[in-house]
C-alpha cells in the first residue's frame, strides 16, 4: 500500500484548517470595518440634519 495519499491528505487537512483559522479573523475584521464605516456615516448624517 502506498502511503503517499495519506501523507498528502494529512498535510492538506492541516493546511486547510490552519489557513482557515488564520484567515477567519481577517474576514471578521473586514466586516467590522464595514460596520464601523456605516456607523460613522449614520452619525454624520444625523449630525447634519440636526444642525
Amino acid at each position, binding site marked *: *500500500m502506498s*502511503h*503517499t495519499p*495519506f*501523507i498528502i*491528505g*494529512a*498535510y492538506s*487537512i*492541516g493546511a486547510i*484548517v*490552519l489557513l*482557515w*483559522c*488564520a484567515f*477567519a*479573523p*481577517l474576514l*471578521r*475584521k473586514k466586516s*467590522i*470595518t464595514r*460596520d*464601523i*464605516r456605516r*456607523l*460613522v456615516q449614520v452619525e454624520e448624517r444625523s449630525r447634519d440634519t440636526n444642525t
Partner: protein
Amino acid sequence: MNVETAKTNKPRKNAFVMFIHKMGSPPWFYNFTGKFIPWFWAIFIVLTVWGLYLGLVKAPADYLQGESFRILYIHVPAAWMSLLIYISMAIMAFIALVWRIRIVEILAMTSAPIGAAFTIVTLAAGSLWGRPTWGTYWVWDARLTSELVLLFIYLGIIGLYNAIDEPRKAARAACLLALVGAVNLPIIHYSVKWWNTLHQGSSISLMGGSSIDTSMLWPLLIMAVATKFYYGANLLTRARVKLLEQDIRKAWVREVLKEKNG
C-alpha cells in the same frame, strides 16, 4: 450625608495601577502588537518551509513505518500545541478571573479556537497515520481518545463564550470553565491512558523505533517552534479583531481605522 455630583473628577490611581492600566489599554495594545504580527508570520513561514523540506524531502523513510511516519511532522507538533495552548489559556484564564483584566480575558478566549484547530489537525493527521499503520482510520488509543476529549472541552469553552451575550460575563464564565477543564485534563489523560492498557488497546508507539535518528528529530523540533509562532501571530490577530469588535463605538477604533486609510 453628602451627595457629590460626580461628573468630572476621575478616580485617582497610583503609579502601578496606572502602568497596568496602560498595558491593558485597548489602543495601546492594538498598536503595540500590530508591530509584531508580520514578523511572527514571517518567522512561521520560513521555519515551516525549512522544517517541511527537511521532513518531507531530506529525511529517509523509517525502516519500521515506511513513508507514513512523515505524517508525524504535522501530527506531533499539532498535538503539542493543542496541549500547550490549553495550558497557556488556563493560565491566562486564571489571571483574568483574579485580576479582571480585560485584555487577558480576550487573549484567553481567542486562544480557544486556535487550540481547537490544532486539536482537529492532530485528530485528522493521527487517523490518517493510523490507516497505513493500524489498518483502520480510528483506533481508540489513549492519545487519540485524550485528544478527542480535549476537543470537546475546547468546543464547550467556545460554545459557552458565544452563548452568553454580555462579553465580559461570557469571558469570565468561559475562563472558569477553562480552569475546571485544566484541573480535569490530567485526570482525564491518565484515566484514558490507563483505560487503554486495561482493554489491551493497540500498543504501537507513535515514534516507531526506540531511537530516533537526528535527521528525523530536527524537522520535528523546527515544526514545533514554527507552530508557536503561528499561535502567537494568530492569537494577537484575533485579539486585535476582538478589541475592534467590542469597542466598535469607541473613539480610538475610529482613529485607528482612519490612520490606516490615510
